[in-house]
């Protein structure tokens, strides 16, 4: 039976390897057809922020890869509202990540949902397995 996996992303996308490693693990896990949820908290909200340009850091801009996750069946991106607010960000600063709903004539639907800290706690409590990056 499929288990519910959540990947907690708490760190900025560049500067450390956590965000990229999390993405790699998510892509591998997707091959095993588990129910995958991504959560973005603290500086992790920057991972799906618009307009990333790490060129000067000499790192690859992997933010486009989040847009491919829908094809891997990963359609639940939860972002903590308080983490955005603490950084002066809003939902408009996030990439418009979408997935195609196979059960609805491949209509494009948003993957990203901004939730409160309390809702995030509930989402985490509902999972079978938690990975923290």
């Amino acid at each position, binding site marked *: 039976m499929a288990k519910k996996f959540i990947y907690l992303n708490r760190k900025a996308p560049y500067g450390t390897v956590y965000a990229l490693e999390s993405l*790699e693990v998510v*892509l*591998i896990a*997707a*091959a095993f057809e588990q129910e995958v949820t991504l959560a973005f908290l603290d500086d992790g909200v920057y991972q799906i922020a618009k307009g990333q340009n790490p060129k000067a850091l000499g790192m*690859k*801009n*992997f933010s*486009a*890869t989040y*847009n*491919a996750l829908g*094809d*891997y069946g990963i359609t639940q991106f939860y972002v903590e509202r308080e983490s955005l607010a603490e950084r002066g960000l809003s939902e408009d600063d996030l990439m418009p990540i979408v997935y195609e709903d196979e059960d609805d004539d491949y209509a494009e639907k948003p993957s990203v949902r901004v939730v409160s800290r309390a809702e995030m706690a509930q989402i985490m409590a509902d999972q079978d397995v938690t990975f923290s990056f």
Partner: protein
Amino acid sequence: MALDIGGKTIATDEEGYLENLNDWTPEVATAMALAEETPVALNDEHWEIINFLREYYEEYQIAPAVRVLTKAVGKRLGADKGNSKYLYSLFPYGPGKQACKYAGLPKPTGCV
């Protein structure tokens, strides 16, 4: 390992994937295919998939898993091409691994 393309040496890893993705040219793909144990002459059907993979990588910065590739090809090129049978007939070593290699992409994540 290395490929010799018109006198220029192109570095590849032990499985034949490019060390430097910027080294890719169509000649690299042709040379990789001819260097197989059973040499492959790339035809238009092969190129259609190779070019598709390069566009996919350009857009998403990853090499797609074979399941995702199959689905994406079906959507773009039609159901008669978006199936394992067709893709394996072109790339018998596995459409993920072999086609990504010719396209100059890294090995798909999750491929063992």
